[in-house]
């Protein structure tokens, strides 16, 4: 009886405490980040609706429906990621690292789809591990660096981190998914940078990266040892001189710039955007989605998208400063920078100021893996924010 009373009181207390905790949890969410991501996803869906309006004859909402399904799954992922304590990742970074590398590796073993081995066909869904790998990779590396946080000044730590990172990067590069490999590289740099790797190491790494670029793009092909496939090489360098071959390698970039320019200030609307509707702009719902958006919605619409991105990046960087532990900070830094890098390379590519790589535009390009992985990344950021050291 007493027991019962005490139990029921305890239960009531526990319920109250739980309710308070839930309320606190909800309060501590970064509502600006959540709001801007929601706006981004909503805006992306609206843009996709317009861009793919004429793509599938007789089914105007084909891509919109699919993308909406991905968004629903992604939001679930976001919620779960928000609930999970990042510490879970920290203690299990070895599992995460092994799992990521394994997933990417089995894609290589599975059959190629559209000439490259990026996808795992799960029947109902084509799963692209390298997209999820972007998130998992950051978690694993951050775990490693957090573990060695006292020995960051040692060269060995940095070299080990690079060595670890190079395994999935190499696997992704073999797929071949050069764009994702670049994103991974950027994430490695950001993770090391935020973790507090000494400046000398970072300078050495930067020098090494420059030397590698020169070697891969210039010196080795000249010496007869091509590392990149010919089309990759052309895509990477053609943006530097786009007029040399408007029909071939630079066709996409020329059409993309025409599309963006044709949008002018206000955009041409869904029905008049001939670059998109008449298919002059290839891949306009995936890699070149920004160009289509700019054509249909103009400078106003495109800037709105960039503003939303800026908002997300700002909130992400703010979370880096608020994180309760080094691991969370490193994770936040890596995720935000990877996002920033993808935005720059994709948008820059459509405007002719970055090399052509197959990187999707986060939250906008049609594609399940990318959308879900990016939403999960936002969930992790939110989770870090919720458990932040100090707020306000």
């Amino acid at each position, binding site marked *: 009886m007493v027991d019962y009373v005490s139990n029921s009181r305890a239960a009531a207390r526990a319920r109250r405490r*739980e309710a308070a*905790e*839930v309320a*606190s*949890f909800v309060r501590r969410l970064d509502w600006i980040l959540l709001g801007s991501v929601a706006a981004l996803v909503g805006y992306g869906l609206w843009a996709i609706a317009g861009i793919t309006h004429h793509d599938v004859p007789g089914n105007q909402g084909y891509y919109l429906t699919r993308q909406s399904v991905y968004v629903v799954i992604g939001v679930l992922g976001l919620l779960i990621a928000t609930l999970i304590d990042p*510490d879970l990742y920290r203690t299990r970074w070895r599992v995460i690292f092994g799992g990521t590398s394994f997933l990417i590796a089995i894609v290589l073993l599975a059959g190629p789809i559209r000439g490259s081995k990026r996808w795992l066909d799960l029947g109902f869904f084509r799963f692209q591990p390298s997209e999820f790998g972007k998130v998992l990779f950051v978690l694993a590396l951050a775990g490693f660096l957090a573990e060695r*946080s006292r020995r960051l000044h040692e060269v060995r730590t940095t070299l080990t981190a690079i060595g670890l990172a190079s395994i999935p990067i190499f696997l992704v590069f073999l797929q071949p998914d050069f764009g994702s490999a670049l994103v991974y590289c950027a994430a490695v740099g*950001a993770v090391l*940078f*935020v973790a*507090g790797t000494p400046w000398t190491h970072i300078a050495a790494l930067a020098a090494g990266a420059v030397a590698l670029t020169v070697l891969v793009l210039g010196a080795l092909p000249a010496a007869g040892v091509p590392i990149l496939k010919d089309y990759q090489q052309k895509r990477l360098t053609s943006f530097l001189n786009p007029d040399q071959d408007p029909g071939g390698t630079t066709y996409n970039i020329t*059409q993309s*710039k*025409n*599309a*963006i*320019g*044709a*949008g*002018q*200030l206000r955009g041409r609307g869904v029905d008049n955007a*001939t*670059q998109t509707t*008449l*298919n*002059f702009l290839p891949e306009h719902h995936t890699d070149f989605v920004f160009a289509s958006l*700019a*054509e249909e919605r*103009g*400078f106003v619409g*495109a*800037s709105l998208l*960039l503003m939303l*991105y*800026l908002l997300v*990046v*700002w909130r992400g*960087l703010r979370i*880096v*400063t608020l*994180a*309760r*532990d*080094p*691991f*969370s*900070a490193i994770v936040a*830094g890596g995720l*935000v*920078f990877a996002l*920033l890098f993808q*935005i*720059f390379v994709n*948008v*820059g590519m459509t*405007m002719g*100021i970055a090399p052509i790589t197959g990187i999707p535009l986060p939250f906008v390009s049609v594609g399940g893996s990318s959308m879900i992985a990016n939403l999960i990344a936002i969930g992790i950021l939110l989770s870090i924010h*919720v*458990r932040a*050291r100090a707020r306000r």
Partner: protein
Amino acid sequence: MAKRNLSRRFLPPDPRVAEPYRLTPQLALRVGILGMLALAIFATLFLRLWSLQVLNGAQLLRAAQNNQRRDIRVQAPRGPILDRNGDVLVTNVPGRAVQIWSSDLPKRRGVRLREIRALARVLGLSANQIGAAIRRHRHDPLTPIRIKDSATRAQVFYLEERAEDFHGVQIVPAYLRYYPHRELAAHVLGYVSEISKEQVAALSGQGYRGGDTIGQTGVESQYDRYLRGTAGLSQLRVDSLGRPISLVVPRVPAHPGNAVRLTIDIKLQKAAEDALRYGIDRARNSGCYGCWNSNGGAIVALDPHDGAIRALASYPTYPPSLYVGRVRQRALDAAGLTTRTAAAMNYPALDRGINAAYPPGSTFKPVTAIAAMQEHILQPFEPLACTGSYEKNGTTFKNWDPNVNEQMTLTTALARSCDTYFYQVGYRFYGMPSNRGPRLQAWASRFGFGQKTGIDLGSERSGLLPTPDWRKKTYTKKTDPTQWRIDSLWKPGDSIQLAIGQKDLLVTPMQMARFYAVVANGGKLVTPHILLDVEQPSSKHSPGRAVPTSPPPAPEPTNVDAQALAVVREGLFQATHATLGTSTSIFGSFPVSISGKTGTAEKKIDPGDGIFRTFNQSWWCGYGPSDSPDLVVCALIENGGHGGDAAAPAALKVFEAFFRKQATQTGPIHSD
């Protein structure tokens, strides 16, 4: 217990980490740098976006619009070809052509092949032909490939209705050449066909593009620049696969080609062609040796005053309509227009009037006569023996008439075409000092032999005027290993035979007509020409007008002595009027006085059985009316026997048509 509970708790009150995290200044700096980088990146993107959309927006919008614009060359209707009276020789009929834009065909091989097969089935072509046409144009993806010139209405409807299944296939208006008189003047008119790759390469500077129609021979080729007009331009909007998404909008109208008026007269041309067939028939029916082989010939009718061609006939001939629309190889084969069958059909494509050379035989004698008088080795009234044969240095040269034995003056010798008389004259040329060169050839050259006449009708032969130098150059150790020492010398026989137009001498009927024009017009060498004028057709915007053309070269004086000319003219008059004149029986009764000379030229010919035999080529050249000539006619019948047998009657038919008068033949023919 508490620790266990922690993991169940929803939120940890305190980070469970080995080392609490502190935002050190160093880290703050790093985050700050990342923030700066982010700002810089976004600033770059914004500026670039501004530059593209706002600063360069208008220009890029134009580029985007041009993307979907496809220019279509609109072929201009080709100008008609008229005769001197404005009657139509060639004109156009409208048709619908089917063409392919190779760049717009389906990219996938299987789909493309299926489309080509379907197209072939609809148009009644073979898929291989279409494939070959596409392959031929594979280096030029921006020019449509015309695969059928004249599609039927049913085919056009079918293709237009199923345009979705025929990507890259287009139906355009086309103009097809139409020949109301069928084979008439085929060699003069020539034919048109699609421009070849080599022609595009050579003529692109003059505005020719792939897919254009261009004249290939005859007047069509010679005056293509007047006939072809100016192509127009239409525009069409297409999607990225080249599928049309708008109607064709005309931008620049096509200007139709100009009308080209020729100097020939349809009636006279028809008469000449009929005369040619008549002459050949006569030859075949005459039963003379070799005349069963008579199957070709040419008639040239020339205005002696200015060289205007009144008729130019060549036989065998062909209908130029074989080249209209899709050219069927089998039809060309059957007409003898391909290398495979040309020889068996006696080369119907050959314009024998200007592009074939024959020994002239006795029609050349007036040249010898004038040259001899001019060189003062022969007096017109000096009697020379005309005998059955003439012997020089152990070689006997025969007269065509073995029974004759009398003294003749030059006029009689011309009238009766005495060979032995001219053998003696030829030998006199041989005896002339060599320091002034060969004189007979010099005069022949002055009258245009051995050189092109300069006619405005494409390829022509210059013939062969043999000289001692020519012998030396032609017969060398290399070309003639056994006999070259003898053959390279100019021997008396060469001069003797040249005097009667035999042995190596080769002339075209046009050259011969040109020389008789010199005799007819009193010593002027005319340049034969076919173009009368060019007229721009009247249109909505402008009335018809004559287009300035370069006039034909003026007749050149040959400085031939009027006395000598008068003797030759008298000789030619007697040849058609004196009792024993070689063509008196043909022309003697004609109401208009005609002067002219027969010729029987020996030519070694393989009639098709591999054995060369000497056959007579029948010639007649002359003019009328005798005292003020308005027309020169030169007729040649291959293997036609004596000149009076075939060529002279054929020539008479032309005169009959020209003067609109009939002749009645009297008496037996006594001709060489």
